């Protein structure tokens, strides 16, 4: 189990001749909290889309020994790759518990589906506890606060048994306190999983990243620890110099 890691080799995505992701290669190990940063249009979300089957790509993306690229979205999900979206997309009319229960149920047979839920699955209880949403279990997901919705999404990834977690701007729009809680949550769950976080928030990255990949114009510009990346003059030029100042302003 420890040997499984996410490996991208020469991943390339083009839209009508426009190269959105250009020969990206990277390796993310289990237990790593990898941040994927870069200016707008750098291809971060497109890369996540390619890994999760939303757009077609060439090259290779493997987890363990399994090729992920160009499979159907729901098959990739069943292989243990889960993602969240920039805008929280929980099932608003269903309760927190129902949301988690659906995420846990992709492998259920017809007979289980046609019956009522008689007890709460163990993994759902665990996810309620680890995300701190236990008291809100019977609340409709639509009435949750923005941060709570994102935590619910992360909880859904946990019960889905995702081993690779791809999070697209999980702390966008969160308060400083919520950001901190989210970072702690990612640390708690990241130890046994492979986590990639697409993020714009530099303070958040500095506090929680164990490694960083910088994308620029579809290519990998730099990769390393937070300190290494920050020291890279090319990164300072295209991104961090600018973002670091705005980051300071924001905090």
């Amino acid at each position, binding site marked *: 189990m420890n040997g499984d890691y996410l490996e991208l080799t020469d991943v390339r995505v083009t839209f009508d001749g426009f190269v959105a992701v250009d020969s990206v290669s990277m390796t993310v190990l289990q237990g790593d909290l990898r941040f994927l940063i870069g200016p707008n249009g750098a291809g971060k979300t497109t890369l996540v889309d390619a890994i999760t089957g939303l757009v077609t790509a060439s090259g290779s993306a493997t987890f363990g020994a399994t090729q992920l690229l160009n499979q159907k979205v729901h098959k990739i999900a069943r292989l243990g790759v889960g993602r969240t979206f920039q805008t929280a997309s929980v099932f608003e009319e*269903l309760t927190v518990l129902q949301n988690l229960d659906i995420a846990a149920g992709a492998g259920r047979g017809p007979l289980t589906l*046609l019956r009522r839920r008689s007890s709460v699955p163990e993994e759902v209880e665990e996810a309620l506890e680890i995300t701190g949403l*236990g008291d809100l279990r019977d609340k409709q997901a639509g009435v949750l606060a923005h941060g709570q919705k994102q935590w619910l999404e992360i909880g859904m990834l946990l019960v889905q048994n995702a081993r690779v977690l791809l999070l697209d701007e999980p702390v966008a729009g969160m308060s400083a306190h919520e950001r901190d809680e989210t970072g702690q949550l990612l640390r708690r769950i990241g130890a046994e999983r492979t986590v990639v976080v697409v993020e714009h928030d530099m303070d958040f990255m500095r506090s929680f990243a164990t490694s960083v990949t910088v994308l620029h114009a579809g290519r990998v510009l730099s990769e390393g620890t937070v300190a290494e990346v920050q020291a890279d003059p090319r990164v300072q030029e295209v991104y961090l110099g600018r973002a670091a100042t705005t980051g300071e302003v924001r905090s």
Partner: protein
Amino acid sequence: MTTLEDKTKPAPTRAKAKRKGELPTAIGFIALGLALLVLAPAVLSDFRLALLGRFVCYAIVAVGIGLAWGRGGMLTLGQGVFFGLGAYVMAMHLKLADAGADGVPDFMKLYGSGEVPGWWEPFRSPIFTIVAIVLVPALVAFGLGAAIFRRRVRGAYFAILSQALAAAFAILLVGQQATIGGTNGLNGFKSFFGFNLYDPVNKRMLFYITSATLLLMVLVVWQLYRSRYGELLIAVRDQEERVRFLGYDPANIKIVAYVVAAAMAGIAGALFVPIVGIISPASVGVVPSIAFLIGVAIGGRSTLFGPVVGAIAVAWAQTSLSESFPSFWTYFQGAMFVLVVAFLPRGFAGVGALLNRRKEKTA
């Protein structure tokens, strides 16, 4: 953070809350059963009872539409196709039964070759007919659903497609004068599985059978709504792509609801035939397909009883209003539809929920 104590406490109260939520449904179900099986036969004349029987058939279609549209988000504008398939299967059997063993239905002698086509023959068997009433619409819906939903056709495109199918189906029927009666359809049935259809006692029996079928369909849908499948169907309706990322193929989930709705429409069509005494292309095309939908929208498409009550109420209003103002009904129908869509998107069943929410807010 949740402590262990918190975790063990809410369990029993939750179970109670669930049972509490089901009590009104059980009361509603019993009330519907009493109204149809006890009250209506006691107070209505034979003529009115037969009329109500026809509306109950519409209500059976409505229950299926509630499932596919209200819970599944599939705007089925072509349920006439499945209603018609069930109806024609039943009508063919009744014609063959009236003609006697190896006999030829009357209209075939007039318009056709005077011989029964080979594909009619299996419908001489009552058992084959009953199975076909459910299976033919279900299989057609499965084929259509697999083709449509796997290609991710949805929303307005799905609605237009399903309506076009209803139009094509009606045109196809009109063209088959020699084999299924063309524009006239099939009519003049004398008996129903050996029972004389002119006998008032048998007509009442038919009403009981139809009402019991409706109650059974409500139970089927109730179980679907409270099952995990019902929760999943809502998830697919509201966020189809998100469900895909959880490892489900949403097409399969939608196909199930579509097939169940089609089978219900087929059963309704089959019961409609002996009650009304005729099935023709005019009862299965675009206009009746839309009419099926109006009752569901007005009653409340995502609720259990909304479609049933809405379908019966709208059909009843149509009959009584067109008796007194023959040319007035269509305007009334249109106005009601517009009002509900504009002001009560959840139908009249949504009024209760709206008031509750307001109460909660003020409290």
